[in-house]
Structures are given as C-alpha cells and as structure tokens.
C-alpha cells in the first residue's frame, strides 16, 4: 500500500474517530454529575436597598375578568395567545368591527376626548363598540410602606382594566380621595397587559400629575396611551434590572416576552426589618421562583429570609394546568416563604394545591366578586412586618 493510500486511510479513520469521540463525550459527560463542577457558584451582588418597618397591601381588585370561559373564548376566537392585545377589540379600544379586528388607533379615537374627565361617557362608548366589555375587571393594589421612623408612604401598583369597575373599586377602598389629596406618590405599572394597564385613566381622573413608572419594553401604543389618558406628571421608563425606590423598597424589571404581545414586567421587592424579603407582583410572568432567585443574587435582605409574597403568581391564570406548574408547587418549599397572599393569575387550583402542600397561604374573605377564599380577595389586606 502506498504512503498516500495509508495517509488517506488514516484521515478517514481520524475523521470517523473524531465523530465518535465527540458524540461519546457528549453522551457520557454532558448530563453526568461531574459537569456540575464546571458551574460557577452564583455570585451575590448583595445590593443594599435599605430596610423598612412594614408594608401593608390593600387589594383594590384582583378580579381582572369575571368569567374565564368568556375571556378565553375571546382569545381563542381572535387567534390565540399570541395575538396583539390591542387587536382583540376589547374595551376600551373597541371599534365596532368585532373580535380580532380592533386597533389602538381606532379605539382611542372614539374615546380620547373624554379622557380622563368623563370616564362614564368613555366607557359607555367602549361598551357599545367592544367585545364582552362587562367581563372586564382589573388588577390594582395599594401599598403602604412604613419607614423605620414610622413615616408612611403610599404607592399604587397597576390601575386595572374596566373604567367602571376600577372606579367603583377605587371608591370602595378610598383610593379616589387618596389620589385627589396627592397622598399616593407614584403609580407602578407592572406590565402592559389590558387588565393591569388599560384602566389608567381611572387613576388619571383623580391625579393626572402622579409619577408613573413603566417597565422597559412597552409597545408604542402603550406609551401613547399614557399621553392620551391625560397624564401630565413625570413618566419614568425603568430599565431592565434593579432600581432602588425608597429605603427598603426596590423595583426590578424582567425583560420577558408575555402573551398577547406584551414585553417586560416590573415587580417590587421590600426588605422588612427583622423579617426578610417581601415580593409584590402584578402577574409575576417571570415566575415566583425566578423572582426569589433574582433577589437572592441581587439584594441583601434581612436574615436572608424570604418572608412573604403578595400578588398574582401567574401559574394558571385561565385555570389551565401543566405539569411544569407541579414543579413549582413541589419546589416552592425550598424558599421558605412565611406568608403567601396570592390571587389573580395564580389560579384558584394552584392556590388550593399550595394549601394542600401545607404552604402558609393567607386566605381571604371572597367578597366583592372574588371567587374563592383560597385567594386574598378584593378588599382584603395583608401586612408584612
């Protein structure tokens, strides 16, 4: 055999062997326990956000919609969960053309002149032109942060959806007066979803000058709505990551894609003196465990303890289920939360699974159209600290 042939045989063997070697190593090592030695231990930034004495959350409304079948039927009819929320033809942006054929421009043109001073008229028009307007509710809560010196500061998280429903809820909890009296410092919008954000004019009606914090990732329609809703105050677009607000309170923006063409969610952290970390969320699309893990990595908090959670935990918002949600129910134990106030998009089924698993769920009173006592419902309060 010539040298050339021998070299060619060697080359063929070497190439074949390389393939086998790569595949063999991939199979043998990639999921072995030994691989974990390569993972760097998470470095903790331990950012000091200060501490506060307590935070009280008043649930203004957690019922974003009143009938799941109706809402999910609309989603199905319009083409599924990826369809742009402004095209569903839901109130207040209905244009009278039917499900899945709406647009922000058409919808706002019909009501803009009434925002925010005549919401009754605006909603009446929206009702006439929208799909299932009476199914709209909304999500919003009041946060009262007590500083270490006893000073109390108030913030709103989200402004709900239906003008009519949210106005009723604001009046029920006295939010209208607080806004009129400028007692509430700022409105944090968790994300651009209809049920958290489209009720913005209700807040504007009582205090158009309020400072608004929105997360990075809003679409152009969402940003335009702030202007169209009559806002005259300061608008702050919070960049992805941690943003300190006041001692013991910080927001965190997660750059995550969300159904109905929404991007990015802002959630809140509180560091309660001698208690630990409290997480308050709108929908928590990033996942409560991701939220807790991010806090662990980024923030220094009391006793290194996850003390409490409040809000929608976005597990089964439409009472749907998936085995990955069971992963959450099984895994949440590791984080040692001491008080859990869940509602909204958590899913009643999930709240019940939490209770069955022995987690410290603070049950509610099921008033004002909240569905079940497993939820911390409308008008209920929870205090951490």
């Amino acid at each position: 055999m010539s040298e050339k042939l021998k070299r060619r045989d060697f080359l063929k063997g070497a190439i074949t062997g390389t393939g086998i070697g790569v595949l063999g190593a991939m199979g043998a090592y990639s999921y072995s326990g030994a691989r974990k030695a390569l993972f760097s231990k998470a470095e903790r930034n331990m950012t000091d956000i200060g501490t506060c004495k307590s935070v009280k959350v008043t649930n203004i409304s957690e019922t974003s919609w009143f009938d799941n079948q109706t809402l999910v039927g609309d989603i199905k009819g319009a083409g599924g969960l990826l369809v742009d929320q402004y095209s569903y033809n839901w109130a207040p942006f209905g244009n009278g053309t039917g499900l899945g054929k709406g647009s922000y421009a058409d919808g706002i043109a019909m009501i803009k002149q009434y925002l925010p001073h005549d919401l009754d008229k605006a909603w009446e028009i929206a009702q006439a032109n929208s799909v299932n307007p009476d199914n709209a509710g909304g999500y919003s809560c009041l946060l009262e942060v007590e500083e270490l010196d006893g000073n109390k500061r108030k913030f709103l998280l989200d402004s709900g959806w239906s003008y009519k429903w949210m106005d009723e809820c604001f009046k029920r909890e006295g939010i209208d007066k607080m806004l009129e009296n400028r007692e509430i410092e700022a409105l944090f919008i968790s994300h651009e979803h209809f049920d958290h954000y489209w009720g913005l004019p209700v807040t504007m009606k009582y205090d158009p000058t309020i400072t608004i914090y929105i997360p990075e990732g809003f679409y152009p329609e969402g940003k335009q709505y702030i202007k169209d809703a009559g806002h005259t105050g300061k608008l702050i677009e919070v960049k992805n990551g941690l943003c300190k607000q006041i001692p013991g309170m910080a927001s965190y923006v997660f750059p995550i894609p969300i159904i109905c063409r929404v991007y990015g969610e802002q959630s809140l952290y509180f560091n309660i003196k001698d208690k630990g970390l409290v997480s308050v969320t709108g929908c928590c699309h990033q996942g409560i465990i991701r939220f807790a893990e991010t806090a662990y990595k980024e923030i220094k908090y009391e006793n290194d303890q996850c003390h409490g959670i409040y809000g929608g935990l976005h597990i089964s918002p439409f009472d749907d289920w998936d085995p990955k949600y069971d992963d959450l129910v099984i895994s949440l134990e590791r984080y040692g939360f001491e008080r859990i106030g869940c509602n909204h998009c958590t899913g009643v089924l999930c709240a019940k699974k939490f209770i069955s698993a022995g987690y410290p769920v603070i049950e509610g009173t099921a008033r004002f159209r909240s569905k079940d006592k497993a939820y911390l419902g409308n008008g209920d309060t929870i205090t951490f600290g």
Partner: protein
Amino acid sequence: MERFGEHYLEERKLVKRWSGPIPALVSLLLTLTVFYATWWIFQDPRGLMRMYTPYIGYMYCRWWLIMMIWMVYIFDFWPFKRKWLETAHPLVKGTVLTLISVAILLALVKGFFEGFLGNYGLAYFNPEQLEKLDGITSFFAAEYSALAILMFAAIASWLSPAWVVAMENAPWNKMPQPARGFSILTITFFLSTIVYFVTMHPHMGILYHPWQYFTSIAPPYWEKFADTVSGNFHVSWIMCCTVVVWLVETIWERYPFNLIKNNWLRRFATFFGIILIALAMHFFLYFAQELTWGEAIRGTRRAFSPDWRWLHVGEMAIFFLVPALFLAFYCDNWPKKFSMPVNVATRTIVCLVAAVVLYIAYYKTSHLFLGTQKGFSHPQQFPMIPTIWLINIWLAHHWFMDNWPAWKMVPKTAHEIEADHNAARARIDDIRFTPKFVTGIGAGLAIGVLFYVVTVWALPGLYEIIDIIPKN
C-alpha cells in the same frame, strides 16, 4: 408488476435548468415565498386562520410531515402508478399529492384521534370530552387535545422514517406495495403507541387535578433524573431522534453504519445508533444551555425551568435539520468529491455553522415577521412550528414536485441506475479497516474528546460575545 414509486426518489435524475447555484437560490426564494404566504394563511397570529395557538397549528404541522413520510417513504407513492409519477407535470403532482396528504391528515386527526380514540378510549384526545370537565375552557380543551395528538406525532415522526432508514423496511423489504406499506405502518404505529404510553401519557395524566394515579404513573418516573415532571424531557430526546434519522439518511449517507456487512446487524446498529446519537445530542444541548444561561432552577418559568430547557433541546436540534435538508434537497448533498468520511464531516460542519447562524437570525428577527414574540422562552414561542412548516414545504417540493421549476425530472436509465449502485458500493468499499484506519480512529477519538472539551470551555464566552437577546 407495477412498481408505484418504489425507489422513485433514487431513480429520478434531477437536471438543473440553470448552472451554478441559481437553481438552489431560486428554489429557496420560491419555497420561502410559499412558506410565508401559507404561514400567513394558516399559522400567523395576525393572519387568516391563526392556527398558531400554538398547539393546534403545531399538531397539524407535525402530522402533515408524517403524512408525507407515510406516502413517500412507507407507501412509495402507492396507489399512484410509476408512469404518472414520471410524466405528470410537477404542479399537477404537487397539487394532487399535497391535497391527498392533507385529506389523510384531517381524517387521522379528526377521525382517528379526536373521533375514535377521543370518544371511545382516552378522553384527552377529544376537546369536546375535555370541555365536559369542570373548569376547563374550550380554548384549553382544544390545546390539551392538540398537545396529546402532537406528542404522538413527535414519536411517529421519529419511528416512521426510522423503520425505512435504519431497518431498511425489513422484514417486509421484498413485499410489494401496498402490503409492505401497511405492514410498516402497523409496526411503526404500534411502536409509537408503546413509546407514547411510557413517555407522554404520564405527562397527560398529571395535567389534571387530582393527578390520575389510577391510569398513569404519578409523579412520572423520570422526575428525579430530569428534574421535572414534564414530558418535555421526552420531547427532547425524541425530537433529537427525528433529527438524527434525517441526518443519517441525508448528509451522513448512513455512514458509518453502512460499513456493516451483516444485514440484521447493520439494521439494528443503525436503529439503536440513531437513538444513542440522539441521546448524546439531548444531553449536550441541555448542558450547553447550562453553560450559557446558568443552571436550571426547578419550579421557575421560562428560560430557567428544566421543562423548557428540555423543550429547547428539541428546538435547537431542529435548527440543525433545516440546513441539512436544504443541502440534501437543493445542493445535491454537496460535497461529493471526497471520500465518504470527508464528505460527511464537511457537510456536518457546514450544517452546524448554518444551524448556529439560523438560530441567531431566528431569535433576533423572527418576531418581526412571523407574528411571534421576541425572546427565547415565551410559552407560546415554538420555533419548531415555522421550521417544520418550512421543512414540510421542502418535502412537498422535493418529493412531490421534483424541485420544479429549477430542476427538471428525467428518469434514469437502467445503466445510470446500475452505475449509481456501483458508485455507492465503491464509496463503501473505499473504507478499509487497515491498521492506518484503526490508528486514525484512535487519534480521532482523542481529537473528538479534545474538541468537546474545548467547546465546553469556549461556549460561555462565545455566547457572551454574541448576546442574541436579553437572557431572561
């Protein structure tokens, strides 16, 4: 005896109408246009039918792929006569065969799964049965049902072609059509059912509250190993199997399994070799995510949850299949001038690079034109749908339409067919187990392991440099 489409694909000569890369580029442009038009009509959330819910669109997409595999690989185009295949205009053939594939698809999904199985066996195959359950909305009833049906499809899309590619149609390889087709269909469907019951059925069994302990193993047996109770763990390796089957069939030319002379040994080695390669891919692509994004955290959502990471393994694998099929269908499986190992290695490297480029381009831009969401891990973001949709169009174009209009189909003469067989034999005979070859294998093994080590070392840094989109 009528041969129908037996060996039709090997015995057709596709003659380029223009020289150089023009036919490939024309075909790419044409198929991408058809892709986008049909995407808008059927799948796009902004389009006409909006089937990308996502599971309904995904279900039809997966099963359409299998329908074409059944028609071409398992049934050899039966009942269409060879004469018709060779003389009908590609547009006529494409239209007729595509419509038939869709008709069988609808009969299977609506008739067999939803109508028969869903009404008389397993309720979760039928949305109407699910809607009878308390609290289940019609949307999720349809989604759950579609999920179950498409999970079956995932398995069938591996096993159906595997029986032809790996098992070489044995033991029915000498049987005429349609008896051979029905035999293979029966065995692959049977095997798919078994695999479904031990992989996907336990996933469906815990989809409801309370867990269905009496009908499925709950929590599923893979929980500790996979760090999740989700069936996505199986979707991952099964998807890899599907991809590897086609790599073996196209750019790898069944190498190195074709070196085995003993028929049954070769068949089993190929069948199980595909699974082993798929498992290697399955574990490595999971590991690659750990290296770039960090360890998964059980219970969380999106890019950090183990269940999504397993799903993403399958998604990454499919990005590899797209360039492989393009190379095979439109580039005449370039290159062919070297020895088989060198050809195979060159194609593999080309496809790997193309897959990485496609992956980056997809996640950077697809949300701008597909109506999907920006980001890696949106629960409704399924890159497998557009990629398989494109593959389906390529299969219809390549199998049903002979790459028309950039190529013209001319039946090979008996002499050409014989020459092809001789060339194929010669390529195999060219690989000799000489001492140098064996030494080469030894050296190659070391190089392969070293390459793996370097890849593992370099991946985190490379990912940081590329930074496709924010990592949450």
